[in-house]
C-alpha cells in the first residue's frame, strides 16, 4: 500500500523531486502572500477595539502557529530517524530548524510590537510569551547540536533527542491561554466550526496563512537539498552533479569574459 513512497527514501530521487517542486512552490507563495498582505494592510476593515494595530495579527498568528507546526514536523522527522534509522529524515529535521527559529522570532517580535500599544508593555513573563520564548531556545539548541558534530549521524541523534524532549512545550504553548490567566488574548481563528471573526477579516488571514505556509515549504525544500548534498558528498551522483555545475559555471564565466 505504501510502496509508492519507497523511491522517495532515496536521496537522489528526493533531491531531484524537491528541485522540480521549488519553482511551483515559490510561484504559489508569491501569489498568495502578495494578495494576502495587500488585502490585510489596505482592504481589511479595522478592528472595532484595536483599530489598525490589529493588522499585525496577519503576520503574528501565521508565524506563531507555523513556529509550532514546524516544530511538530521536526519532531516527527527526528522520531522516524531514531526508530527506523532513516537518514533523510535527519536531513529534513536539520533543514527545518533554522526556518522554525526565524518564524518563532517573528512571532515574538510582532507580538511585542502589538503588546506595546494594546497592553502598554513590550514584554511580560506570562505563560504564552515565556513558553514561546522557550520554543525559540529549543530551536537554537537544535541548530547548535546539528552543527556541533562533524559526523552528521551523531549530530542528528543528539539534536533528535533534544527535539523529542522539547515536544512537551507544544501543548503548553497551545493551551497556555486556557490553563493560566494571561494577558494574551484567546484564539480567534482556530475555534472549531465558528471562528470568532467576521468574514471580511478572515479571508485575508487565510491568504496570509497559506502564503506563509507555502513560503516555509519553499525554504525548507531549498535547505533540504543542501543538506542532502552535504551528507552524500562522496556518492557518485553528487560528484557528477557538482562537476556538471562547475563546468556550467566556468562556461558562463568564459562567456562573460568574451563580452
Amino acid at each position, binding site marked *: 500500500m505504501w510502496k509508492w513512497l519507497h523511491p522517495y527514501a532515496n536521496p537522489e530521487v528526493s533531491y531531484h523531486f524537491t528541485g522540480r517542486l521549488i519553482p511551483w512552490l515559490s510561484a504559489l507563495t508569491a501569489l498568495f502572500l502578495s494578495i494576502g498582505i495587500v488585502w490585510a494592510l489596505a482592504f481589511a476593515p479595522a478592528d472595532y477595539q484595536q483599530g489598525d494595530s490589529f493588522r499585525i495579527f496577519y503576520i503574528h498568528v501565521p508565524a506563531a502557529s507555523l513556529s509550532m507546526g514546524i516544530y511538530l514536523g521536526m519532531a516527527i522527522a527526528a522520531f522516524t530517524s531514531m526508530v527506523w534509522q532513516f537518514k533523510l529524515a535527519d536531513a529534513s529535521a536539520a533543514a527545518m530548524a533554522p526556518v522554525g527559529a526565524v518564524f518563532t522570532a517573528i512571532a515574538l517580535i*510582532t507580538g511585542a510590537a502589538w503588546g506595546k500599544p494594546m497592553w502598554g508593555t513590550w514584554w511580560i513573563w506570562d505563560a504564552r510569551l515565556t513558553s514561546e520564548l522557550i520554543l525559540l531556545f529549543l530551536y537554537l539548541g537544535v541548530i547548535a547540536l546539528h552543527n556541533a558534530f562533524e559526523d552528521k549521524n551523531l549530530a542528528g541523534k543528539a539534536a533528535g533527542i533534544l527535539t523529542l524532549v522539547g515536544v512537551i512545550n507544544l501543548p503548553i504553548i497551545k493551551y497556555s491561554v486556557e490553563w493560566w490567566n494571561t494577558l494574551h488574548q484567546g484564539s480567534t481563528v482556530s475555534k472549531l466550526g465558528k471562528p470568532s471573526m467576521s468574514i471580511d477579516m478572515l479571508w485575508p488571514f487565510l491568504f496570509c496563512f497559506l502564503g506563509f505556509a507555502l513560503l516555509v515549504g519553499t525554504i525548507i525544500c531549498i535547505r533540504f537539498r543542501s543538506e542532502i548534498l552535504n551528507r552524500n558528498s562522496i556518492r557518485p551522483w553528487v560528484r557528477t552533479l557538482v562537476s556538471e555545475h562547475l563546468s556550467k559555471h566556468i562556461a558562463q564565466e568564459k562567456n562573460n569574459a568574451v563580452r
Partner: protein
Amino acid sequence: MQFDSFSAFINMGGYGFYVWLSFGVSTALITGLIYSSITGHTKVIKNIATRQQREDKLRKVRKDRKNAQTNTQTNAPNEVTQ
C-alpha cells in the same frame, strides 16, 4: 480600500510605528533567511568541488610517486652495472 489617503495608510490610525515595525522586521528576517538558504546551497556545491579537486590532486601525486618509485627500482640494477 480602508484609507482615504497615502498618509493615512502610513499613519495606520496612530499605530503606524508598531504596524510598520512588525512588517519591516518580518520582511527583513524572511529575506535574510531566503538569502542565506540560496547562498548556502551554492556554498555547499563549491565546498564539495574544492574537496573533490584536492582529492583528485592527491590521488594524482600518489600515482606519480608510485610510478617514479617503480621506475627507480627497475633502473637501479642498470645503474650498478654501469
